[in-house]
């Protein structure tokens, strides 16, 4: 019997008083309470609970009956949230997913972070003392002036100074005995016999953060067992990382041959040229060439510090069998630490007692003060003691529980949109009167992402740089009414895109200057989609009058590849067909599974496709590289899914990508967007808009689509929440009484008939 099993049974016997009372009062109804007690002693508590479920009713305590949380949490300073998809990786070298960032961004602290309130998005120090400015070196490692031409720069050197006094969270990997030796670094199978989760280790320890921990993590990106998703990209930039990855691969193979699969590869013994410790609080990263966007990467968990002790601790034989890995139990310096990790049920973040302290920002945009977002300026973070994330796979129960007050904030699904949101006469969204009476508030923000429909530029019909194909693409761009699309399929939550760069990113142009003049006109101070007659005129010029090929007379048939199969997508795909039919084009939808769709994209056999991109960092390069020729999907396996290649665009991209944000860069970006709008390799689609609803007790919410470590800024009023929950969730018992009476009444005629039959003569 496992240790965990024993503890569960013990906790099961220590029933809450009221539950025991209920249980005992049902003794006669159950018939044999001692029999059940015996079962309680031998069976799993879940099974016992199942029995109680059928023999007991609500306990009638002060918390609402439908409260999904333990009574002990009533009034506690806990933030309640949910997640829909189980996280796969919590290792900062592996995780590259928003769902996972929700957890690890609260635990790990990279050198930089985004300012919570200021817009456009701005980097500020987190564990670093300041945002590092690179030094530039030539090929002989001689220092160059700051304004040196990009072509002369062979290396960029970032010296990053970390703040002193930062400590890691308590963790058994740091625990030492009286002699100063690590308690849990050499464990036998017997030592691990009663260990099933991290909390089973009695001792924990902590230590100061050092610059070596940052370097260690950069080396981990190249670890062959970790398969870091950015090792390929970073190998292009960090000096020597590619060779380092190859070196580690052969060392690791050799080590495994000698010591087995769980051998610990101690990266401290293998230096990496591009990441070096300068002193205890300073480390140096050397980048090949000039790459100003590297600073943004320093705000991601990939570059957060990881202590070598954690790797050493988790690498021991028997740990992985118990799911005790760094991929499962992070070790960080952040405001929270992961204390419960059950991705099938609940993830719990608890305040890190060793947190170094950070204060709520005292500056933001002018509107922030008016919105009360600066009321907590200068106060220490985090505000909540604990964050409980519950798995909610379905939107309906999630929404219902949010309205009952059991979740503090929520997005708005299509199912509940009309119930929650209405548009004012000016077209701005607001909560409905019913929701306003409950005290709900709405926050919105346009995301730094884009969803678009792309043309495969390698295709003979829709692709290429010839004028015929270009006019065809422009005609289709006009015909696809994305304003209607947003209204129907996104409940109005989106902004029609004029180009690849979303609002909030350097290089985005608003107003008249920013419209796509090939698709829109500027009318009454607003962009207005060109009429369909203009699209038909372009079709005729392209040689497809009324959608028929002028040479063959055959109708134009286009193929749209999508991974959106299934009945849920039918209406959307029908809408696409209708849009193309406006031009006489027959659209054939080739819906398939995601694997086949990926294959088609890699081989370039698709004609039209839909795709999206969420910004890694707020820089135009992160969007314009999606149209950069040498980044094509088919030839280079890159992210240019349309396989668009325009020499002028590519030339400008190479100039623009390494520039600092200045007027010249803005001019180049605008020119590139103009070229892309003219060539129309994408139908630009839209930038989704984020709608977040929150209760009156939830404070300091400002949607920040770049930062993930925002939980620390949230403050709640637990007293108000408890009051509202009680008010909103009074149990209604009378229907149960009515049903019981009806059942009893209905039994009367049955009994009468039964007795009559029993007394009746056989013949």
């Amino acid at each position, binding site marked *: 019997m496992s240790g965990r099993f024993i503890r569960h049974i013990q*906790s*099961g016997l220590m029933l809450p008083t009221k*539950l025991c009372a209920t249980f005992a009062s049902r003794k006669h109804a159950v018939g044999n309470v001692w029999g059940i007690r015996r079962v309680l002693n031998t069976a*799993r*508590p*879940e*099974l*016992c*609970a*199942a*029995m*109680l*479920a*059928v023999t*007991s009713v*609500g306990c009638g305590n002060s918390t*609402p*009956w*439908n409260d999904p949380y*333990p009574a002990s949490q009533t009034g506690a300073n806990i933030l309640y949230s949910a997640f829909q998809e189980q996280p*796969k*990786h919590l290792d900062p070298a592996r995780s*590259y997913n928003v769902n996972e960032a929700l957890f690890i961004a609260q635990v790990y602290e990279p050198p930089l972070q985004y300012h919570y309130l200021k817009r456009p998005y701005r980097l500020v120090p987190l564990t670093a003392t300041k945002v590092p400015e690179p030094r530039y070196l030539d090929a002989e490692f001689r220092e160059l002036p700051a304004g040196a031409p990009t072509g002369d720069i062979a290396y960029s050197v970032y010296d990053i100074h970390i703040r002193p006094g930062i400590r890691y969270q308590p963790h058994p990997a740091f625990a030492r005995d009286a002699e100063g030796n690590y308690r849990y670094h050499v464990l036998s199978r017997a030592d691990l016999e009663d260990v099933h989760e991290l909390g089973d280790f009695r001792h924990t320890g902590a230590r100061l953060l050092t610059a070596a921990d940052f370097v260690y993590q950069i080396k981990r990106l190249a670890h*062959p*067992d970790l*398969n870091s*998703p*950015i*090792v*390929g*990209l970073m190998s292009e930039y960090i000096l020597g990382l590619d060779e380092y990855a190859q070196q580690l691969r052969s060392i690791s193979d050799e080590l495994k041959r000698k010591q087995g699969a769980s051998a610990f590869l101690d990266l401290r013994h293998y230096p990496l040229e591009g990441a070096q410790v300068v002193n205890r609080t300073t480390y140096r990263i050397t980048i090949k060439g000039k790459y100003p966007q590297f600073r943004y990467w320093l705000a991601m968990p990939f570059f957060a510090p990881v202590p070598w002790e954690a790797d050493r601790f988790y690498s021991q034989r028997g740990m*992985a*069998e*118990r*799911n005790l*890995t760094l991929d499962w139990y992070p070790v960080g310096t952040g405001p929270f630490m992961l204390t419960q990790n059950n991705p*099938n*049920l609940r993830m719990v973040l608890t305040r890190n007692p060793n947190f170094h302290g950070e204060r709520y920002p005292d500056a933001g945009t002018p509107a922030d003060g008016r919105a009360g977002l600066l009321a907590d300026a200068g106060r220490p973070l985090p505000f909540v003691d604990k964050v409980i994330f*519950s798995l*909610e796979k*379905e939107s*309906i*129960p999630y929404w*219902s*529980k949010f309205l*009952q007050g059991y979740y503090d904030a929520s997005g708005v699904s299509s199912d509940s949109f009309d119930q929650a949101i209405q548009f004012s006469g000016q077209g701005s969204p607001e909560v409905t009167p019913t929701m306003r009476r409950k005290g709900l508030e709405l926050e919105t923000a346009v995301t730094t992402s884009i969803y678009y429909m792309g043309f495969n530029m390698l295709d003979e019909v829709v692709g290429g740089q010839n004028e015929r194909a270009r006019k065809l693409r422009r005609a289709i761009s006009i015909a696809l009414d994305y304003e209607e699309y947003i209204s129907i399929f996104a409940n109005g939550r989106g902004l029609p895109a004029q180009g690849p760069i979303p609002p909030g990113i350097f290089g985005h142009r608003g107003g008249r200057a920013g419209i796509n003049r090939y698709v829109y006109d500027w009318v009454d101070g607003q962009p207005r989609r060109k009429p369909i007659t203009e699209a038909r005129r372009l079709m005729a010029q392209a040689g497809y009058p009324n959608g028929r090929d002028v040479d063959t007379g055959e109708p134009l048939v286009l193929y749209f590849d999508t991974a959106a199969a299934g009945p849920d997508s039918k209406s959307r795909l029908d809408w696409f067909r209708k849009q193309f039919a406006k031009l006489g084009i027959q659209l054939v939808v080739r819906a398939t*599974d995601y*694997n086949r769709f*990926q294959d088609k994209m890699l081989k370039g056999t698709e004609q039209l496709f839909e795709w999206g991109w969420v910004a*890694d960092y707020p820089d135009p390069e992160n969007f314009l590289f999606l149209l950069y020729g040498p980044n094509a999907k088919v030839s280079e396996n890159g992210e240019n899914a349309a396989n668009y290649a325009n020499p002028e665009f590519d030339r400008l991209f190479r100039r623009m990508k390494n520039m600092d944000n200045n007027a010249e860069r803005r001019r180049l970006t605008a020119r590139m967007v103009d070229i892309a709008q003219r060539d129309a390799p994408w139908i630009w689609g839209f930038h989704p808009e984020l709608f977040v609803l929150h209760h009156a007790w939830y404070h300091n919410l400002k949607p920040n689509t770049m930062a993930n470590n925002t939980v620390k800024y949230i403050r709640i009023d637990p007293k108000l929440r408890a009051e509202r929950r009680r008010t909103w*969730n*009074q*149990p*209604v*018992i009378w229907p149960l009484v009515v049903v019981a009476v009806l059942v009893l009444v209905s039994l009367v005629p*049955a009994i009468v008939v*039964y007795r009559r*039959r*029993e007394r009746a003569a*056989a013949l």
Partner: protein
Amino acid sequence: MIAYIIRRTLYAVPILIGVNLITFFLFFVVNSPDDMARMHLGIKRVTPAAVEQWKHAHGYDQPLLWNEAAGGTAKLTETIFYAKSVRLFMFDFGRSDEGRDIGHDIRQRMWPSLAIAIPTLLIGLLMNITFAMLIAFFRGTAFDLAAVVLCVMMMSVSTLFYIIGGQFLVGKILDLVPISGYLSGIEAWKFLILPVTVGIVSGIGMGTRWYRTIFLEELGKDYIRTARAKGLSERLVLFRHALRNALIPILTGIVAVLPLLFMGSLLLESFFGIPGLGSYTIDAINSQDFAIVRAMVFLGSALYIIGLLLTDISYTLVDPRVRLQ
């Protein structure tokens, strides 16, 4: 009987190999190792080198079924099929492609599934038999007709409707129990009331109809007529004679599904947020985690075989005329 059990157990081996082979074949027809790698590595910035590295690290860089480059038995053993399947027969499920211990996951997730499945089965059975006997007692009357019509109506309603309706009425309108969620240990009870109730109510229509048919068949037999002829009350006829004999098909049917109970219910667990095994396989298929898929299919097959064996044995226990040879 022991010889029979041993023989049936031995029959299970080729069946399990066949099931494993079919699972393997079907999975890799839909998903190539490259697809799996891309799925696990994410959708951004996945390089061919990263794909190759993932396949190497997870043992998916070998041929599927036959290794032409190897020599001797290695042609068979140095393949994905052999490497991923042979340990299953020792019930060593290994690790998922994400690195989690599958056996641990199953052991952890089976208890919440059982906590729903066992009371749903037992109480549902009790209620269905009670209703069926009541209807059989009033056979040929308007009550019988009305009850059958009601059962057909209940059978026709989707389980999803019962779930959403139950959550809306009981959890949201009446505020009696949590709409969804789960607490481990003894506090799980209040989260189980609604899913268990929904599970029972959604099965009443079909269960009652089925058991009514069994009872009516028994009530038409000669021994019932004899019992009535000797003056027994209808209550005794029903409970002492009809019920006992009707239990044979009921029990044998139930024994077959008993081992499968812990596999959980996809819909109930998904909507009620119960961390059981119901969605484990579906989630694994969606995330292209072959390790979990093959483990769960293997386990399901093994349990089904055990269920059928138990059914055969239960025949001999409840019907003395049956002998296993």
